[in-house]
């Protein structure tokens, strides 16, 4: 059974805005699925549809075989949600907040406390466990929200911009936790972010969305195959022979487009044979960011030509 399936999922708000438009996704268990797009692309609306907070205007979706529109509380029992809007209680301490949510999810007070302490330790919040939430920084709140979403050991985790407001060290520990959950417990992660470089570090599969419409889905390799079959070679040399087409890159380097790595030795040899000295050679496949912008361009061109 797939963890998440959406079938022509659409949501039109009463204002008439079509926030999600016919999105089709199939996400397997244990995947870290990056749902990527700019602000207002429809990511948060999709999370709300998948968690049963919104009812679809058209289409349907399921989480672990359950329809969130029909049985939201069943989906909630199996999932954890972290969004910027879902806050915790300022008047309670970090540990009191976690124990409260643990008991609301049906754990005993003792079990909640045990799990809360472990999560606080994993997310480096042990020292702040007895501080009221009002005294927490944004980053600490963000980490506590993640701990709250994990207190009942969910099978699916919806994360909306989980590392926004985190310092690099905290961001790293959150990333390691997410990877460990997917790897060791086969937790499915649905991660929404507009930070494409961050997503490339952590996700196993991607869905790219813009203005409510899904641009493409798949692994990084599959997405690359859709936009470009080649790679970019960056060379730093004191002379580039005539006839070798290149574009000027950063730091005095030149960038040459090739179809495969097999072409690189011949290019280097040509530079050296022409009397040039080569200081640096590296090959790079298109990044997620480049793929995303290529797909956006294609969509705009497609829209313009129609």
């Amino acid at each position, binding site marked *: 059974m797939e963890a998440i399936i959406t079938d022509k999922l659409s949501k039109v708000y009463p204002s008439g805005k079509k926030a999600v438009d016919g999105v089709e996704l199939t996400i397997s268990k244990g995947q870290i699925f990056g749902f990527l797009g700019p602000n207002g692309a429809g990511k948060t609306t999709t999370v709300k549809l998948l968690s049963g*907070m919104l009812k679809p205007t058209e289409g349907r979706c399921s989480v672990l075989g359950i329809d969130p529109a029909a049985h939201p509380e069943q989906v909630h029992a199996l999932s954890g949600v972290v*969004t910027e809007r879902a806050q915790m209680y300022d008047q309670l301490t970090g540990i009191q907040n976690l124990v409260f949510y643990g008991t609301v*999810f049906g754990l005993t007070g003792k079990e909640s406390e045990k799990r809360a302490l472990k999560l606080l330790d994993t997310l480096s919040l042990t020292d702040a466990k007895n501080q009221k939430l009002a005294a927490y920084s944004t980053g600490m709140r963000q980490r506590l929200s993640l701990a709250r979403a994990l207190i009942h050991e969910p099978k699916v985790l919806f994360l909306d911009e989980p590392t926004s407001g985190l310092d690099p060290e905290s961001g790293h520990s959150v990333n390691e936790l997410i990877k460990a959950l997917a790897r060791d417990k086969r937790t499915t992660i649905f991660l929404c972010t507009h930070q494409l470089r961050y997503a490339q570090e952590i996700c196993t599969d991607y869905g790219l969305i813009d203005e409510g419409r899904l641009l493409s889905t798949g692994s990084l390799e599959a997405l690359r195959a859709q936009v470009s079959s080649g790679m970019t070679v960056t060379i730093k040399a004191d002379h580039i022979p005539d006839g070798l087409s290149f574009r000027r890159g950063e730091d005095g380097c030149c960038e040459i487009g090739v179809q495969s790595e097999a072409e690189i030795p011949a290019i280097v040899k040509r530079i050296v044979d022409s009397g040039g000295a080569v200081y640096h050679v590296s090959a790079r496949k298109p990044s997620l960011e480049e793929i995303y912008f290529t797909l956006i361009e294609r969509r705009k061109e497609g829209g313009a030509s129609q």
Partner: protein
Amino acid sequence: MIRSMQAALIKKDLRAVTDNKRTLTVLFIVPLMMTVVLPSIFIFAMGASSKDSGDLQNLLALLPAGARIGSLSQMMAHLLLNNILPLFFLIIPVMVASVSAGSSFVGEKEKRTLETLLYSPLNLRQIFSAKVLASFILSMMVSLISFVLMLLVVEIETRLALGFFMAPGINWLVLLPLVSPAVALIAIILIVRGSAKAQTVEEAQQKSVMLILPVVLLASVQFSGIMLIGPWALLGLGAALAVVALLALRGSVGKFQYETLLK
């Protein structure tokens, strides 16, 4: 399991009210006014006022035959404890219910903690009933404590100022278990229904405070000597309010939807 999950929510809501100094101050001041200050003023005024006052004579004439026994002071004290104070007393459950329901529903929305709660495995009906119950429990607890305090104050003051003790009348037997819970429930429902639209606690509380107006009106009618609210009238009023409260409660549960709550 569900019960323990709801119990956790009730406990948290009660704690949220008691942990908030501002809310707690309001919960202390109004009952103190109604149960200590107001009866003391009345008892003091009773001793000092002219017994020939026209309104007072009219009011005393409305007393049932059974209550028109003893001295004029005893009749006046009876009127105070069993006819005048019960109506003012009703302000307590209305006020406590409004404050706690406001904090529980609109306060959670305002502080963006409601969304987190909605992601729990409790369905909307369970969240709704736990929150209503928390406000109701608090309202009834404060009312009961206020009643005991008021009785103590009235008994001590009448003993000291007028020289006798008084037994609370049958009006209280109708008021405490019927009228008071019914008005508290109506106040909670008004707040809850308003919470979907209201963005601040104060905005939601304005509506339920309107409930105090009929109470004040009834008290004024009594003061002017036009009518006296007896046990049967109170019973009828209480039964009608209880029916309204239960119907409103049933009607409100279905109105709650995730989409409207998260606006």
